[in-house]
């Protein structure tokens, strides 16, 4: 028994040291981190890339846009990621962090659009909402319904309270938590856009910019908005169980579950593939990937991976990414970004 234990210990030490020395060598696969929204698309490209090229399949971690940026900007060595996916543009603060840590040249590639849908169960009637109504339903503070300039805590309990034409159902919206990029985009595209339309809030913009932002971006916390976690499949299941509630998530989940749920029209436009691609449906956001230029040539396959991602068979109208729910960019835009990616043109954030 004693011998057995000693052998075990020796073997484990051997493995540990052998691995540690190996780890110091380079990396022969691409390492990608970032947004969970871009994850399904970049994994599809990675798999295709791995199977059709002589390179290894890239490794992709789903860390969220912010987490990905943080890892991406820690430095320029092989132990840092080569590419980060983002469901929003890189912030200037993130770019500064990158610069400070020696990541000087970053290539930005816009890969397409993602629609954010407000959906409910097929068993209920289709909702037709405006962004203004969504703001009134979800903001923490709204202009007083009695008129006047005063802001009051959100008094609306049912959709009918907001607009007589809407059903007499309790306001109950399942959506992503604040850590999610989908939530950021929803707040920006729906709440920010519509809240400036209210006279009383607009006045606030001039007098107190900070307060203005807080009013526009704070989601109510009295139970009408339910944070359902990052798992969009879970939201779909909950919508099925409770036909009176609405859910907020990415277009691909609506696309896959069209027999169970339906997208609500926002500002008169239904969230269909065509409407999002043409820009008629307003709640959509661009998706990006950011590449560390210093790693191209150091890690094998990065240029080829970019070429695969920006090829028409991937991100084109009939490409395999459209199949997965990515909304392609117009042809001209694709051409520009494909050229930029090929030339590895570093991005300059304004």
């Amino acid at each position, binding site marked *: *028994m*004693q011998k057995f*234990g000693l052998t*075990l*210990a020796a*073997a*484990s030490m051997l*493995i*540990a040291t052998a*691995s*540690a020395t*190996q*780890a*110091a060598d380079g*990396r022969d*696969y691409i*390492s990608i981190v970032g947004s*969970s929204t871009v*994850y*399904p698309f970049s*994994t*599809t490209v*990675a*798999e295709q890339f*791995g*199977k059709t090229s002589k390179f*290894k*399949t890239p*490794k*992709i*971690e*789903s860390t969220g846009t912010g987490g990905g940026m943080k890892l991406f900007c820690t430095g320029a060595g092989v*132990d840092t990621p080569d590419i980060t996916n983002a469901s929003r543009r890189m912030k200037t603060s993130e770019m500064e962090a990158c610069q400070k840590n020696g990541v000087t040249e970053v290539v930005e590639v816009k890969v397409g659009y993602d629609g954010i849908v407000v959906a409910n169960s*097929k068993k209920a009637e289709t909702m037709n909402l405006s962004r203004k109504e969504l703001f009134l339903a979800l903001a923490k503070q709204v202009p007083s319904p009695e008129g006047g300039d005063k802001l009051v805590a959100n008094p609306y309990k049912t959709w009918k309270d907001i607009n007589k034409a809407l059903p007499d159902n309790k306001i109950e919206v399942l959506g992503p938590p604040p850590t999610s990029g989908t939530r950021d985009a929803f707040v920006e595209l729906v709440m920010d856009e519509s809240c400036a339309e209210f006279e009383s809030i607009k006045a606030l913009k001039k007098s107190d910019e900070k307060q203005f932002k807080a009013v526009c971006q704070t989601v109510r916390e009295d139970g009408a908005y339910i944070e359902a976690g*990052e*798992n*969009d*499949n879970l939201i779909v299941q909950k919508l099925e169980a409770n036909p009176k509630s609405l859910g907020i998530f*990415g277009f*691909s*989940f609506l*696309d*896959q*579950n*069209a*027999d169970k749920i339906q997208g609500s029209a926002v500002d008169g436009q239904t969230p269909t593939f065509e409407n999002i691609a043409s820009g008629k449906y307003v709640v959509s956001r661009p998706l990006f990937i950011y590449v560390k230029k210093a790693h191209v040539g150091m890690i094998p396959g990065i240029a080829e991976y970019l070429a695969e991602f920006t090829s028409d068979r991937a991100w084109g109208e*009939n490409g*395999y990414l459209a199949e*997965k*729910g990515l909304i392609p960019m117009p042809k001209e835009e694709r051409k520009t970004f494909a050229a930029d990616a090929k030339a590895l043109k570093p991005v300059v954030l304004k």
Partner: protein
Amino acid sequence: MSKEQKISTMDRVNVGLARRYRRERRFRLFGLAAIAASLLFLVLLLVSIVVKGHTAFRQTEILLDIHFDPAVLDVNNLATANYAALVRDAVLVFFPQVEDRQDKRIAAKLVSTGAAYQLQDMVMNKPELIGSTKPVWVLADDEVDMFVKGHIPRDVPETERRVSDKQMAWIDQLAATGRLKQKFNTTFFQAGDSREPELAGIRGAVMGSMFTLIVTLLLSFPIGVAAAVYLEEFAPKNRWTDLIEVNINNLAAIPSIVFGLLGLAVFLNFMNLPRSASLVGGLVLTLMTLPTIIIASRASLKSVPPSIREAALGVGASKMQTISHHVLPLAIPGMMTGAIIGMARALGETAPLLMIGMVAFIVDVPQGFNDPATVLPVQIYLWADSPERAFVERTSAAIMVLLFLLLAMNAAAVFLRNKFERRW
């Protein structure tokens, strides 16, 4: 006087007897109800997983007559030949009525993109196939598979399902001519992760789990046993050993994510070990399971009666001989049980692995301790988050595999205990 009192005592007992019996029956009933309730939940859980997941073990395949066209397959350039075209031509043979280019594209999509890779493998291994025509079973697309299994309903309007009326007619035609069959899903056990549900498998995750557990076992068992032996047999009883003991018990109860953060700081940032490697996963899980193993090992050392030690010392054995010849062999079964239960817990862990990058999309099956890897519970988590419907059943199937492994490990623990443990 005394007689009267005796009778009255008996009377009092008799009066209360029925109530006491009732109370005892109630007490037993509560216990029974508690067991029934927990069994009910367990059965509900298992049934819902099995009902959702059992279909994943079968996969729809389509029989194609592939003509290995020499015009497409250039012997000198087999790696880049257009295998998808071979598949497409073979599919379109069934539907001569299809003329439209768009329709042809849709028809070709009945077959998984994996079919092209399958043909590539066949031709690369056996170039003499070129020029011949052979019947080949290829994987169907995940949506066809879902439709055949009834997960995509037939009776809803066309716009609401992922399979159009045209595709439905084609699938029915294939099924009627015996060209469509459900077979045992070998891909599920042989492939790594994939974005195409029909090509996705658990092999990569199982191998990752295995590598991780090997590292965990090789490190935590010897260290844990050595620590337990020292603390139990050699260490003096003083404030320091008390402090250590309290800390070990405390560590056993710490949420596992904390070990992940520690691993991130020490193994990745300080020691510069590779991200996402099963080696680092094993190190982190070692930290997590060590307290469990130390506690179990100490308990089993304690259960060896002092008379054994005294007898050994009495016939002149040294302290070390006493321990290595007598105490340890008797305590080892209990230690192993503790280790296996610790390993089972490590097998089901995801939270600490999140911090060290093992929650990732990894297609290639890991070949060693340094390759990027993921583990079974992480694979389940990633699939549960995927939009494609076919991943729902695969999620449940992966859970079934995980449960089976856990069951096997716990059964091994019980077996070891029954076979080797000595009762005193």
